[in-house]
Each structure stands twice: as structure tokens, then as C-alpha cells.
């Protein structure tokens, strides 16, 4: 049930971003291939340092340079490669067709301007409206994202808002130009659970109302399960598994996805059900060779995983995995040694 190509909103092929620091070259993203369809929510999940945020910054072309540099790959949005656009053209897309909200709303809002000024600025930059009209539009969008008495609050400064309200302002700013794609980088991580529920509900409602796609970056599998249609799991600069959320949560194919799901407390899990991924996240200045997960992997194939990087294999339509358990090389390896490696079931797999 592969979807037709006209449904594709954004396509990333072979994206590669390095950071050239004094300690050495941080190979933040090695190879990222992604497709975002129209009006879907794609989750991008991984631990810190897996390259989720760098992927987002690379899409928008706002990787801090120096030290960062996009070395390779293409980001195709509406048939054109964003990497080939001039700065002026890119500015027309950024904040207009593709908007982004950041994790910490206090550092991404300007403390010396009122929130109304900041939302109007985005509107006036992309639309031919007067200052007065822009202000009216700001009030409208602020009440839309659930800020009470928006016509008064529009003249307040960011510090006069609470954390949850600030994040609403950020969302209002992102929505002000009706973007087709919203990149939400950990939008609820710094908020309390009750506030997080409010913000996620708001994102869900607005994505339906504006018919926009969302790339939701988070490390919380719970948030992914609540919000997303599809999910991409990242580890150390690679996408290791991407597919429909129901499939991934029920029967993950990649050992890392399996480990990640085993390491979080499930709704009806017991203490003993928590499993561990041994070792720790690699240092990306000197990452493990080939498959970067191999030193921590329980299914590692000696002589194969540390020398050959597995390709993304399509297990079933829309479900891709980057692991030698499913490649031809891997199968040959298993046959040669007469060993059979099958990924274990999740402890107390969810009964569906």
C-alpha cells in the first residue's frame, strides 16, 4: 500500500551533516533518508546525540556554520532541492511553508519585544499586510492556540508568560503563516505532564485544522505513541527503523528499537520487564565502524556488522529497517555458520 508520489511533501535523501570542532569532526548525521507525507505526523525518536535535532536544522538549512556543515544529500520540498536555493529564496520558505518550534520557548523568544511584535514580525515578513492587520491576525492566532484574553496578552513580554503559555506563543508564531510542515523539536520536554498534555492536544488539533504535516522530535516513546502516524527511530546519525506506529510498537525489527521499547515502563509491565541496552551512547567524534549500534547489540554478527554497513531494507511496504538481520549479507552469514538469529519478542508484548 505504498502511497502515490504526489502525496509526498518532503523527501530527504542521504543527508550528511558533520560538525568540525576543535576536538575533532563530530559525525552527527551520517545518512538520513526520510519521507514526510502530506498531513501526517511523523515521529523522530532517539536518545540524545542521535542526530534528531541536527536533522531538523539541516532541513531548514540553519545548521550553525561554522562548525557545522551539510556535506551531502538532498532535501526535496515541493519538487525543489532546498539545498540549492539561494539564501533569499530559502528565507521565503523558512517560517512560511516550513515552520519550527523549539524545546525551550524562553531562549527562542526575544525577551525585549512583546509577543505581539514577534508574531506580527513573522506575518509581515511573509504576507503583504499592514502593521495593524498583522496585529489583529496575531490576536486571532493567539486565541486560537488557547491563550486567554489574547487581546490584552498580545502586548505582554515573554517573561510574563508561564512555560506552557510561552510554548503556546511559539506555536502561534509558527502557525501564523499557515505552514505546510511544522517541525516540533521536543515541544513538551521541559513542561509538566499536565501542561504537556495540553500542548500535545493543541498540536494535534491544529494539525488537523490547518491540514499540516508535523515532524515531531522527541525522546519520549509515550509522546510518539500518542501523537504520531509513523515513526522513525534514529541512532548515532542513522535512521535504523522507520514505519507505521502500530507495526513498530507491536513488533519492532531493529534490535535498537526493541531495546528502546523494552527500556520504557509499559502500561501493564512489571518491574522485571524492564530490559537494558548495555553500554552507552557512542562518542560521535570516533563512532564505531559500519553499523554504529554493533558494540551494544545482542544480535551482532562477528565479522559482518563491524565491517559492512547494512542498507535500509524494506521489510514490508512503508517499513524500512537498517540491520543485517534482514539483509542478504546477513542471511548468508547466518547460513554459513548455521546460526539463526531471530529478534526476541518484547517482554510482555502488548496484547492487541
Amino acid at each position: 500500500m505504498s502511497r502515490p508520489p504526489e502525496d509526498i511533501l518532503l523527501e530527504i535523501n542521504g543527508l550528511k551533516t558533520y560538525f568540525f570542532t576543535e576536538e575533532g569532526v563530530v559525525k552527527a548525521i551520517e545518512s538520513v533518508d526520510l519521507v514526510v507525507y502530506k498531513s501526517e505526523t511523523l515521529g523522530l525518536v532517539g536518545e540524545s546525540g542521535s542526530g534528531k535535532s541536527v536533522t531538523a536544522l539541516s532541513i531548514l538549512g540553519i545548521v550553525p556554520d561554522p562548525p557545522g556543515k551539510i556535506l551531502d544529500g538532498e532535501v526535496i520540498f515541493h519538487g525543489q532541492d532546498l539545498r540549492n536555493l539561494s539564501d533569499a529564496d530559502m528565507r521565503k520558505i523558512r517560517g512560511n511553508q516550513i515552520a519550527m518550534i523549539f524545546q525551550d520557548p524562553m531562549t527562542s523568544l526575544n525577551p525585549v519585544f512583546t509577543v505581539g511584535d514577534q508574531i506580527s514580525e513573522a506575518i509581515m515578513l511573509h504576507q503583504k499586510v499592514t502593521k495593524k492587520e498583522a496585529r489583529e491576525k496575531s490576536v486571532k492566532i493567539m486565541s486560537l492556540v488557547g491563550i486567554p484574553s489574547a487581546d490584552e496578552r498580545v502586548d505582554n513580554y515573554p517573561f510574563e508568560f508561564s512555560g506552557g503559555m510561552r510554548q503556546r506563543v511559539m506555536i502561534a508564531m509558527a502557525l501564523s503563516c499557515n505552514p505546510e510542515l511544522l517541525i516540533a523539536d521536543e515541544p513538551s520536554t521541559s513542561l509538566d505532564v499536565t501542561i504537556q498534555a495540553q500542548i500535545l492536544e493543541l498540536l494535534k488539533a491544529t494539525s488537523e485544522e490547518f491540514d499540516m504535516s508535523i515532524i515531531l522530535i522527541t525522546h519520549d516513546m509515550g509522546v510518539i505513541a500518542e501523537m504520531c502516524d509513523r515513526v522513525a527511530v534514529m541512532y548515532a546519525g542513522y535512521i535504523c527503523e522507520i514505519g507505521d506506529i502500530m507495526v513498530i510498537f507491536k513488533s519492532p525489527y531493529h534490535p535498537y528499537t526493541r531495546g528502546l521499547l523494552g527500556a520504557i515502563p509499559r502500561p501493564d509491565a512489571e518491574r522485571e520487564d524492564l530490559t537494558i541496552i548495555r553500554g552507552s551512547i557512542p562518542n560521535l567524534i570516533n563512532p564505531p565502524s559500519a553499523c554504529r549500534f554493533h558494540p551494544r547489540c545482542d544480535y551482532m554478527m562477528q565479522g559482518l556488522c563491524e565491517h559492512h554497513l547494512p542498507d535500509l531494507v524494506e521489510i514490508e511496504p512503508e517499513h524500512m529497517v537498517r540491520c543485517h538481520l534482514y539483509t542478504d549479507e546477513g542471511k548468508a552469514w547466518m547460513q554459513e555458520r548455521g546460526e539463526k538469529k531471530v529478534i526476541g519478542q518484547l517482554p510482555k508484548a502488548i496484547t492487541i
Partner: protein
Amino acid sequence: MGSTESFIEKLAIKQEQKGLLADRIRTKEMQEDVILEVVNLRKFFDIPIPFETTWFMIAFVGAIVLFAFYQLYGLILIGAIIVLYFVLPYVPPFNKRPKVAHLKAVDGIDIQIRKGKIVGLVGESGCGKSTAAKTIIRLHEPTSGAVYFKGIDINRLTSEEMHEIRRHLQIVFQDPYASLNPRATAHDIIIEPFDIHGVASGDEASYRVLTLLKDVGLAPHHAYRYPHEFSGGQRQRLGIARALALEPDFIVMDEPVSNLDVSVRAAIIQLILELQRKMGLTYLFIAHDLSLVKILCDEVNVMYLGKIMEAGTSDEIFESMMHPYTKALISAVPIADPTKRSKKIFLTGDIPTPINPPPGCKFQTRCPLVSDICRVEEPTARWYSETHVAYCHNIEGGEASPDFYKQ
């Protein structure tokens, strides 16, 4: 354990020798299995209110203008204003303004912790859970209330006596990097408690450091590394090793895994559980991650704005919660299962500031069940079983006292 009992005896003998009144140390008869009991504990912080400078500023600018026109008079005026600014706050009737406001971080909580149990304390940020934990082990002096550790009210002990009892009460902090001395090696960090308490020295101490490192899953060669050379998870292991050094009975875990990545978090949780099994430890586990608390804790206390809203066993809190706040809090937790997208209860607004908390029930500003009585009167306890208690005016059933169930 044995050491504590002997400590109590020693304490009693010392008291007698000094001829002190025995009731200076207040003890309480506690149930056999209760290790720590918190009774109506309060901790207020004094927040100084700055003197209003607006009028002073206006006068000051006026004085400068005057000075520009009448040089000497202006100088006298400026002097007078400065003197008045510092003197006025002490002269009646201008000294009536309160100079401090009370931030009621913990406003009367009761907790009973049984031996060998993991007791959870959950709530949103700013609800006072960390302050409560620190006050319980007397890192903060409480404003009122008592904490009985094995029957002794620890807040009445002198600093010498407290020094002895600290061996049995330990804490693991949220941010392992901030709580470890960056200029000391792992060895120095873990050996410090031995030095302070004179438990071991020299080779024996070093040997015990290595054993501890092994217990928490670190290797002997880690002993001479500095905190910055460890990863986040390893640093937290080091923090745990330090807390374990003196073989305590009771450890406060103040969000020990909140700063860690998912895969590392599970490993630390496993370690915490394993140590508890092996050493018979008792934990007060503070967290805001409810799905973790659910699988980890035997009993759970839900806190909101300095007060306990509901307490009970883990099953009672997560399966048959009564309080509207608990219901909203639990429903807000994202469940890692796409087939179970839960129906959420959305609370409006944010947690109010604890400086001037609302009168009556603390939760009234956000409560979906709020009625007139909530705005005036604080709710009393309603017991749903011997362990399950909730504080709310608008919930059905329950008894006024737990004794009803004790038969």
C-alpha cells in the same frame, strides 16, 4: 539495623551522663515495620520583599532636576532622600509593611515509610517534593512538624547526634554532575564518608571503595577518574555508590533518572532495585515520571502545592484513584502504546505560585469538580482503605478515619 539500636542506647546513656532531661529527645512508639514517620511537616521559605523604589526614584530624579537649578539645596535634598530611603522602613507607621513573604513549599505533610518499601512522591515541578525530601532528612530545618526515624525525632538532635544518625539517612541527587566534586576522583568521592565518620581508613577504606564500585557496576580502573570523565549514567552510579558507602537504612532518591537517556535510565532503575533486594534498603523515590513510579513503587504519595492530595499503595493510586488531581495527572501521562490512546482530562491553567497559595483547597483553581466549599475550607481526609487516603470535598464514599478498616 543493629547499629541504630545500639546508637539509640548510646544516646540514652550519654543523656544520662550529661544529666540532661530525657524528654529532650522526643521519641515515639512506632509500629514494628515503620522505619520513618513524617508528622505534619512544614517548610516555609522567607522571601524578602524589596522596598518599593518607585517613589524613591521619582523623588531622586526630581532632586537631580532641583540640583541642576539650585546647586546646594539640591545636594541637601538628595542627601535627605537617601537618608529617608534607608531610615523610613524602620519608622512607624512606614514599618508596617511585611518585609518577608512566606513561600509555603511544604505545608503539612504526613508520610509513613515501612521498612524495605519503595515509597514514591510524585507531583508537578514546584509542588515541593524535593523540598519535602530534603526536609525529611534534615538538609533543611523544618518550620514545624516532626520526622521520627526509628522512633527518634531527628529535628531535636544536636549537630553531633545528627552527625551519627546521618550514616543511616542518605540521598541521591537528580543531577549527578552538580552533586559530585569536579576536582575529586571517584575514589576520593566515595572515601570521604569513611573519613568523616571514621568507619575505615587506609587500605581497608580503599578496598571498600573498590567493592562499592563493583556493587554499582563500575570497574576498579574507574576509581581514579574525575566526574567529567564519566558518562551520565556512570556518574549517577557514582552518586549511588557514595550514598551506599555507610550502609544506610534509608535513601532518598531525588529524581535519580530524570536527566538520563532512556536506555541508561532502565539500567539505573535495575541497579536501584537490585541494591534494594540485596541490602534491604528503604527508598523514598521522588519522580515526575508516573509510568516509572507505577512499576517501581509500593506506595505513592501525590503532592500538589505543598500538600499531599492522595496517598495509597501503587495499585490503589493507579487503579482506583479518587482525587480529581490524581485522575488528571495520571490521564495526562502519555502511554507508550498506540492502541491505547487514552481519554485525557485536561487541567486548565498552571500550578499557582506557593507564595500566596489559594485559600481552602489548594487545587481549587484548576479543579474540574470545584464547588463553593472548596474556596473556603480545607478538605479533610477520607480513607478508602487502611492505606488509601484522599483529601477532597467532592468525592464520594470513604471514612473519616483509617481505624474503620482496622479489624
